[in-house]
């Protein structure tokens, strides 16, 4: 892991990994969407409304994975003080928030015809909305403390601590439909159900759905890598400007002394 903490090595890998993830992700995700929406089966009870699942489940997965990656990166940032970990956590926040919002929007659009309501305050929907607000809080905190000297120290550590505390919500989202009676249905996908093909969801839904999850995950990874490169480039440009300003100051100081 220490090897990846080197920004120069990270940039060498990210240079080709970013476009690779983005292009492969776009191709796989659009193939899965065309497959599921255009050629997949309609559900026996829901009819064509079921097709929004190929967008809803990947966005929900990435909303939760986004915060999980913030939490893991924050842990590494605090314990090992890897500068790249803090950058990774900050880069993961915005795409995570976008996917969480998309999950809430697509779920709401599905809920109106399926349940008969746009929104209810049950355990799953409420904890997912809390996740969106946690993202907003994290981005505000990370933005307010980003100009501190070193990551993992001083005020820069506050965002990392917030990222770790917020991770408590992730298991709550997952178990909300099992602990409490909720309008949202319990999980349809499980490892054993997918492998044996006997889960509650028929295989003709599972295959395009998992393809879509893979495609959107690659897109998410590509966006996070691109944002990490952006943050690195920003800090490099800032450091260069600071050096220039200091050199100019030193020169004018020397001139003043010479007179």
């Amino acid at each position, binding site marked *: 892991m220490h090897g990846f903490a080197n920004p120069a090595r990270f940039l060498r890998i990210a240079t080709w990994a970013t476009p690779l993830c983005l292009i492969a992700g776009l191709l796989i995700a659009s193939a899965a969407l065309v497959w599921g929406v255009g050629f997949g089966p*309609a559900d026996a009870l*829901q*009819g064509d409304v079921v097709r929004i699942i190929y967008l809803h489940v990947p966005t929900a997965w990435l909303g939760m994975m986004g915060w999980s990656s913030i939490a893991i990166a924050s842990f590494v940032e605090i314990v090992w003080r890897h500068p790249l970990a803090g950058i990774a956590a900050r880069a993961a926040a915005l795409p995570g928030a976008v996917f969480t919002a998309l999950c809430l929007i697509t779920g709401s659009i599905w809920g109106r015809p399926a349940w008969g309501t746009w929104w209810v305050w049950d355990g799953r929907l409420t904890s997912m909305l809390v996740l969106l607000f946690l993202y907003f809080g994290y981005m505000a905190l990370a933005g307010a403390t980003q100009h501190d000297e070193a990551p993992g120290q001083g005020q820069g550590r506050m965002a990392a601590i917030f990222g*770790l505390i917020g991770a408590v919500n992730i*298991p709550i989202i997952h178990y909300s439909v099992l*602990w409490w009676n909720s309008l949202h249905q319990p999980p349809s996908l499980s490892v054993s159900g997918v492998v044996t093909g*006997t889960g*509650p969801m028929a295989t003709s839904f599972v295959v395009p759905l998992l393809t879509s999850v893979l495609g959107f995950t690659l897109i998410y990874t590509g966006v996070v890598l691109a944002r990490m490169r952006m943050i690195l480039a920003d800090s490099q440009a800032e450091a260069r400007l600071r050096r220039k300003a200091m050199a100019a100051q030193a020169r004018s100081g020397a001139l003043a002394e010479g007179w």
Partner: protein
Amino acid sequence: MTGTGLRAKHQRLVLLGVALAVLLVAGLLAAWALRNQASYFYVPSEILAKPPEADRSVRLGGMVVRGSMKDAPDGVTVNFLVTDGKQQVPVRFAGIRPALFVEGSGVVAEGHWTDGLFTADNLLAKHDEKYTPREMQGMTTDQAHKAIAETK
């Protein structure tokens, strides 16, 4: 790296691990304390065991018993039974029913519990975790697997 640097790193690792464990236990305790309050609806056996006051607005959830749905002569009122597998209670609703509200499927009714009858002001259809293609509707699981095997 010096010895003190390593020690500080391990100290942070242990401290953070303990803090996270405490945080997780606190979160689980809070969720456990919420287990009744955070439920979105009562199921029939709960509402029979501990009936809410008649003027309180509550939600009742469960499966619509097959063959129990009966339309009243006025054309808008429907009577049906809701079950949680253990007990069942009668529900009356007058209004527009959601499209997925059918016998044998999940339902959440919002309304009042008075003298053994649940009067619903609003009905929400609850979808379960099962997703079945329209072509395989009515087949048993074995039949469906046979149908899939034949097309391969």
